């Protein structure tokens, strides 16, 4: 009895040590990202299925006109801008080089999520 209790105590200590190794090295957060990379390495990465890309919104404003931009071009364009700011009173975001510029992109949360998942960084303010 005592032997088993001692073994269990040692096992608990071992669990604590292993958990600390993960937590203190700040590895938990990257674990799932890493698992994704491994899955991609095995099966090849595919376009994520979690978004309906037909429901994303990306409009380019120029000369008082709004032109619809394909989502793939949009992600690269958004990443190039200085910042994206939520339009007051709306759920959309305006992405721009200069806040006063007449040329800017108007995107929604779906677009931001999709582009982030694809590895692009929109600079949300």
């Amino acid at each position, binding site marked *: 009895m005592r032997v088993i209790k001692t073994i269990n105590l040692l096992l608990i200590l071992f669990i604590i040590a292993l958990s600390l190794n993960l937590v203190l090295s700040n590895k938990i957060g990257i*674990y799932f990202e890493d698992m994704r990379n491994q899955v991609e390495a095995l099966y090849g990465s595919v376009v994520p299925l979690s978004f309906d890309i*037909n429901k994303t919104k990306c409009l380019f404003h120029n000369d008082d006109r709004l032109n619809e*931009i394909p989502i793939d071009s949009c*992600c690269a364009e958004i990443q*190039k801008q200085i910042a994206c700011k939520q339009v007051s009173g709306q759920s959309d975001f305006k992405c721009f080089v200069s806040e006063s510029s007449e040329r800017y992109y108007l995107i929604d949360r779906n677009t931001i999520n999709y582009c982030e998942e694809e*590895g692009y960084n929109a600079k949300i303010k």
Partner: protein
Amino acid sequence: MPKLNNDFLQTIVLLTIILVLLFFNWTLSKAESESSEIKEPTNVLFDKSTNTLQLDSLTLKQKIAQMIVTNGDENAKDELQKMLIGGIYLGAKPSKESYIDSIKNFQDGAAIPFFVTIDLEGCWNPFENFQKFPTLKEIKTKEDAYQVGFDEGKLLKELGFSIDFSPVVDLNDTIWNCRSFTGTPEEIAEKANFYIKGLQENGILATSKHYPGKTLSIRDPHQYITYATIDDSDLMPFKKTIGSNVSAIMISHVIVNGLVDSESKPSVVSQKLVSGLRNQFAGLIVTDEVHMLGLYKYYTDADRMCVDLFKADNDLVLYFDANPKDLYHMISIVEDAVKRGEISEKRIDASVTRILEAKGIQVV
């Protein structure tokens, strides 16, 4: 007896937890050891006093890395320098100083200088906060085209850039409505030539795009894989700019037939199409950004896409994913393809030589 069972059950549960934790720790240390394979490029024999680089001092991975241009994310600077990535692409910044500082930060300590790239694409002006330029659509004469090219080139040189992925020589832009020149194909070609002259007189490498044409004129925003029939007028601006010594040509993801045939594949991965261009053009052949769905959706396997991009005769691959791990993965996949003979190392060497020479480095 029940007491013994309880303790024993506890032991089994604890052992199971340990096994799970051991698995977590093992997979992570494996990932870490893979990343730590990226070492300081101390092997590179580059004599900066004579600007001469010994090509065979580069590992195969380093040669492949030289063929990649990625997003210039300063958080990834160390990894990009260690991997020997060929170039960085910079987006908008608030001031001249922020560009100069950022470029200096990347170039300081780089074993081989990065190509520093941007695309002043028609109406995209990342310098809007401190310098205005007319859009390509607003340029009316060849003299204006030269002046705009010259002014942009002067600023790019001052900030530390080396390549401008511009001008667009597609005959029409129905997506942004401001990225292409206007006029007849002859007028577009003429303006493009003068604009390129202005850029290149300042030591900036100009890029005619998007070969073989019709890239900005046929897109339905919800249709990613696009098709076009190419005729003489689409190709004419490319031929004219090649004749005027444009430094680079960017290939599109459109699937084409007609005068140029991409074998039912996106143009950028068609060996026939890219090699056909190579036969007429000795400069740098650059891919359009590879995450674009016109290419990405054509493949179910992104690794296959990476191999095909390098297998075709492209010199520079634009890959704007900000994650260095994904870059390293791409390099490893292409290295494997070279090792198993699917891509010849000679073909990689030819591209790397072109890239280094375009950087002003003598290759021996």
